């Protein structure tokens, strides 16, 4: 196996048990992230982008979630087989994650300094991490704990400065509500990258932000990726952001990756009818009136998804077999460009 392969998700099936029945959220997801990749994962609300990403650090709560089959490899090891302590250290040391809404990812009653010191402390092994929190404020009376806290604070200030928060040594005492949306996202980036991660999972990092702030944050992520030699899984529904940031793109629909390839291939030469529809639905630079077209219908109900290919009720190329058989395994139609559709198999 290619040893540059950082993450490999193989035929992942995820169910959620709800009061109304079993919701089949992921239905055979295949995804590969090579090291140094910036992979964009796009799709509409509810298509399973976030669930796919959360399966890498195994953050899906079970129950109600249940991974019924499939494997998730991170650096060659199966994440699903690890013990709790192993997975905790993996999350702390190798993975960084930032979320859509920076306001809800920070605790409003602690200063950002306290939160960052906690996070930095948790990157160490359990005994030292717990020592940081030990005795609360009285912990400062113990020299060893004081030293640990001081080191963690230094690292926090260094990271805050790196992400562009001026006078970081003063602002570290501030609480989350004293920061604007863009600044909070910077704090989160600083906190998540304060370890030595090899993969950054960015879940809609700029969706809640304005265009000019979005540009700042995207530029910052680009710089940090270069500097820290990160691989990125960028989840977004904004195809513009993907075109700007990513080398490779995976398109998801209703719990399946339908198309995956280089950004150039997918945007310029989309093959799957859903990708074609999605690209045709957004007004871009110079689109004239009447040129965009929505995809008729809406996303299927996951409790009772349509049989066969889940896109077939909305697909203009649907054939009888699309409704009968599950969609074929991804076919490589050009180097690195894979499509899962009967049109190409």
């Amino acid at each position, binding site marked *: 196996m290619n040893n540059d392969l950082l993450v490999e998700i193989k035929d992942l099936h995820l169910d959620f048990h709800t009061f109304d029945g079993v919701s089949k959220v992921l239905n055979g997801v295949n995804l590969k992230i090579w090291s140094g990749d910036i992979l964009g994962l796009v799709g*509409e*609300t509810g298509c399973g982008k976030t669930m796919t990403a959360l399966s890498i650090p195994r953050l899906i709560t079970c129950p109600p979630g249940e991974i019924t089959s499939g494997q998730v490899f991170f650096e060659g090891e199966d994440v699903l087989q690890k013990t709790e302590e192993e997975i905790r250290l993996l999350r702390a040391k190798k993975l960084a994650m930032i979320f859509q809404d920076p306001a809800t990812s920070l605790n409003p009653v602690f200063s950002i300094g306290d939160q960052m010191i906690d996070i930095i402390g948790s990157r160490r092994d359990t005994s030292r991490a717990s020592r940081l929190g030990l005795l609360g404020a009285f912990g400062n009376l113990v020299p060893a704990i004081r030293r640990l806290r001081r080191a963690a604070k230094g690292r926090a200030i260094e990271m805050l400065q790196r992400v562009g928060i001026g006078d970081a040594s003063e602002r570290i005492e501030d609480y989350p509500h004293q920061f*604007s949306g*863009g*600044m909070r996202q910077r704090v989160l980036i600083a906190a998540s990258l304060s370890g030595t991660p090899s993969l950054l999972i960015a879940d809609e990092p700029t969706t809640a932000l*304005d*265009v*000019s*702030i*979005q*540009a*700042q944050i*995207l*530029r910052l992520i680009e710089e940090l990726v270069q500097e820290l030699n990160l691989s990125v899984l960028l989840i977004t*529904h*904004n*195809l*513009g*952001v*993907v*075109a*700007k940031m990513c080398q490779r793109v995976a398109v998801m629909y209703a719990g399946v990756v339908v198309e995956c390839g280089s*950004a*150039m291939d997918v*945007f*310029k030469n989309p093959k799957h009818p859903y990708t074609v*529809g*999605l*690209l*045709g*639905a*957004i*007004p*871009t*630079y110079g*689109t004239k*009136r*009447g040129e*965009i*077209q*929505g*995809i*008729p219908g*809406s*996303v299927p109900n996951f409790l009772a998804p349509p049989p066969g290919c889940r896109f077939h009720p909305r697909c203009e190329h649907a054939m009888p077999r699309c409704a009968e058989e599950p969609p074929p395994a991804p076919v490589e139609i050009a180097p690195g460009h894979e499509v899962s559709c009967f049109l190409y198999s």
Partner: protein
Amino acid sequence: MSETLLEVRRLKKYFPLRGGLFQRRMGSIKAVDGIDLNIEPGQSFGLVGESGSGKTTVGKTILRLVEPTEGEIVFEGQDLCRLSESEMRERRVDMQMIFQDPYSSLNPRMTVKRIVGEPMLIHKRAKGRALDDRVRELISLVGLMKDHLYRYPHEFSGGQRQRIGIARALALEPKMLILDEPTSALDVSVQAQVLDLLLELQQRLNLTYLFISHDLAVIRYVCDRVALMYMGKILELGHVEDIFQEPMHPYTQALLSAMPVADPEYQPEEIILEGEISTLGGEEGTCRFAPRCPASKSDRCTEEEPVLKELSDGHLVACHLYDGG
């Protein structure tokens, strides 16, 4: 110039900022600070800006859902600010609003039939059989089915709910619609459906739109003329193509360059703005954008407030770069 349907003159809305002992008035937030616009019938006028720029407040003050502090709102030759509450309620028949969030703008306890029929009951336009017929007509106009009539909002997807909102807004046959981020909560494939519906309805019913959005691509797709707002001021105003082809104001240039385009080949040189929009409103007598402006060179930017000036036919810019400075 042809006649105007709506003219807004020197519109201001200041929100009091209270604090300290007994919630004294400490100052004010200048959400809208003296803007002028005019909208011709049958036109789509776009209002773009970042969050906190005051664009939604403009929409709400025009309907007097929020009372303006100062200024005139002239609709078909009548100043709306001089009307009494009950007269204003009558006038609102001609101007309806569609909101961003189709989840919170529909009453969850009402069926679609009641939601769409309610405006006509309130304004005593129809009842009984005539009301039923009219509701059915509206529902099919926005692309919903007859069997949707007796369902509740939670049974619909976001795009369908937005269609219900549109049907409700059209119930009184308004002349003008104020659309506040009508597609921001929707997915792209559904957004396209709703935008096409809006364009089709505009053609069919000869509607005038005031389209408020932060999405430049959507504005470009829908609107004829567009105004860029920043901290309660209009910085640039003109025909959509003029502004998108030849943006003049440094803010417009930066915003357009920062707009992500879904085309890996077309990636223009980005102008990244430093800092963020301030929500407190700018200082009097300075250019609001000066602290973040990449082009701000002269002292005039911080000493004198630029005014909107016509550069070419119908293209207005408020910037000292273009007024001989």
